[in-house]
């Protein structure tokens, strides 16, 4: 900024003066515009946002000082150098008081003008950098994420830097750290944002269906292939294909993916012609990809193709104050959804939330907060409402729950009210719902409860019926990962076959 290429506004009503300034600045490489009155200066400065203004004081309509006052009111941050024929101390003092960075007396030599302008531009650049740094520090909601911790700032910077390119992105991080959110952020910040973002969980799809899911199939390719079907690669054409849990991909499928990454073309299952698409690949895994390569579970050549720009999602325990920002966000959001009055956390509850290591990361925190909102009443979340694991591991002494009766203990909830339970949740959200001090009458309990496994199966089957057996949609309805449904279906099928 302090070098060539800055925007300089000359505010000068005498053409000779303006021509002299313009000529002296000509070979510095700046873009120069002229305003010949106070009103023109205001209009140009606000519209063009110059880096520096060379401001004459005596203008035909009003004074340069008045222009400076109005620009300051408008929040303009240009470096202003007052240029005047009066070299008096009073003028200098007034110029500085009105926000000028320097003061130059006419007539001036080229060297004096050049140095004054360079200093002003450098100062302006520093002010801008400082403002940018402050803005960066205060960014706590970026790209769909919540949090302004240094670890997340690094993630934001990487995503913003890589978004515009075509480079493949590889996201790593523990379960529940927001890898899919990061993949979506890359897509949304990229020039491909108007095109599709297609996410595929490689770990959730049976091995024999994975090729068809990615590359599609033609009618008759295999039993049950009654129609041509587009794969994720075709659907993502022009956009982004997100391959989650890429480490779960079988080796033979990795070969096909490698060919696709190298050539941009693929052959649908059962097809005879190669198809070409323009897709940006974002992959993710919660494992260390290089360890997978060394263990022979992931192809090294594919690793190098995909691991172009790594993004590491930090675990929640390394995100400091982000825990509370996220917890407050979830509290407000779930309270609104559940029509509850919760507005804040008690200080002790906040301390416990902050101190807990959150092995299940944001997803675990989300589940905990949703369950607090669902199971309790009040305007403030008290320590007694927190799960015991938080109080044992995270809270200062003396925070053990005194009498935390859930607000309601009753029959299983309807599918609509079932809290979102992530498949990788380390702590199932209902784990801390222990018998309340005032339990329901003993004789009613057996009738009130069914086995959880029975309820679970019924809920999932109901959701599948509701979505015409569309597993991803059913999973979305239940707030779980599709892989959970695939896994459950396989398990139930095996159980049924056993008898």
């Amino acid at each position, binding site marked *: 900024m302090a070098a060539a290429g800055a925007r300089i506004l000359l505010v000068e*009503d*005498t*053409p*000779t*003066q303006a*021509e*002299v300034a313009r*000529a*002296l600045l*000509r070979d510095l490489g700046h873009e120069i515009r002229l305003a010949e009155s106070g009103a023109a200066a205001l209009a140009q400065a606000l519209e063009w946002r110059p880096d520096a203004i060379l401001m*004459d004081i*005596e203008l*035909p309509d009003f004074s340069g000082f008045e222009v400076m006052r109005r620009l300051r009111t408008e929040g303009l941050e240009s470096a202003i150098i007052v240029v005047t*024929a009066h070299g008096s101390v009073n003028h200098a003092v007034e110029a500085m008081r009105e926000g000028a960075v320097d003061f130059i007396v*006419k*007539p001036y*030599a*080229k060297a004096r003008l050049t140095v004054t302008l360079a200093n002003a531009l450098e100062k302006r650049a520093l002010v801008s950098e400082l403002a940018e740094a402050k803005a960066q520090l205060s960014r706590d909601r970026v790209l769909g994420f919540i949090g302004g911790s240094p670890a997340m700032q690094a993630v934001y910077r990487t995503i913003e830097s890589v978004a515009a390119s075509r480079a493949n992105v590889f996201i790593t991080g523990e379960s529940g750290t927001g890898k899919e959110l990061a993949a979506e952020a890359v897509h949304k910040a990229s020039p491909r944002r108007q095109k599709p973002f297609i996410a595929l969980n490689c770990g959730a799809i049976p091995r024999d269906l994975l090729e068809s899911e990615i590359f599609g199939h033609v009618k008759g390719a295999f039993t049950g292939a009654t129609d041509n079907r587009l794969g994720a690669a075709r659907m993502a054409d022009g956009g982004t294909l997100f391959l989650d849990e890429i480490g779960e991909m079988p080796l033979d499928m990795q070969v096909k993916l490698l060919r696709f990454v190298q050539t941009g073309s693929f052959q649908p299952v059962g097809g005879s012609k190669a198809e070409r698409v323009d897709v940006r690949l974002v992959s993710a895994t919660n494992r260390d990809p290089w360890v997978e390569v060394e263990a022979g579970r992931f192809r090294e050549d594919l690793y190098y193709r995909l691991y172009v720009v790594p993004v590491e999602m930090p675990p929640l325990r390394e995100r400091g104050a982000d825990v509370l920002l996220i917890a407050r966000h979830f509290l407000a959001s779930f309270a609104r959804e559940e029509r509850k009055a919760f507005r804040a956390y008690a200080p002790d509850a906040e301390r416990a939330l902050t101190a807990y290591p959150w092995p299940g990361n944001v997803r675990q925190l989300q589940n905990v907060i949703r369950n607090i909102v669902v199971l309790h009443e009040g305007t403030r979340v008290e320590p007694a409402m927190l799960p015991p694991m938080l109080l044992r591991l995270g809270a200062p002494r003396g925070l053990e729950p005194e009498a935390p009766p859930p607000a309601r203990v009753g029959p299983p909830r309807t599918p609509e009210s079932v809290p979102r339970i992530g498949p990788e949740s380390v702590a199932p959200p209902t784990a801390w719902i222990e018998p309340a001090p005032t339990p329901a009458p003993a004789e009613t309990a057996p009738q009130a409860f069914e086995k959880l496994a029975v309820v679970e199966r019924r809920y999932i089957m109901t959701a599948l019926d509701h979505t015409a057996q569309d597993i991803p949609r059913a999973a979305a309805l239940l707030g779980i990962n599709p892989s959970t449904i695939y896994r459950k279906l396989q398990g139930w099928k095996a159980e049924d076959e056993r008898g």
Partner: protein
Amino acid sequence: MSVIDPEIAGQLAADLPREDFVRILRTFEADLGRLAQQLEAAVANGDQEGYRRAGHSLAGAAAAVGATRLERVARIAMDHHNPADPRALSVSVRQEAAAALVELAALADNPPISR
């Protein structure tokens, strides 16, 4: 005695390519014609503020190219308390302007230091 300050005008001629310096002189010449007319019109109409403003602009233009004698004359017009006769002053402005242009043109042909 020179009507221009050789330090200011000479520095300008030395700092700039000849075409830039010549462009400045042409602009200055146009300014002089316009501002001298404005000054004379203000004198004829008894327009004190117009007289002061024209004097200010003339002084600024003259100062920019080192036409110091013209600048000094023009500054008299800016000063409400100066008892100088405006009609006589406007004549002086014309004379000093013409003299300054002659010296500046000569400077353009023979700049003191080659850029």
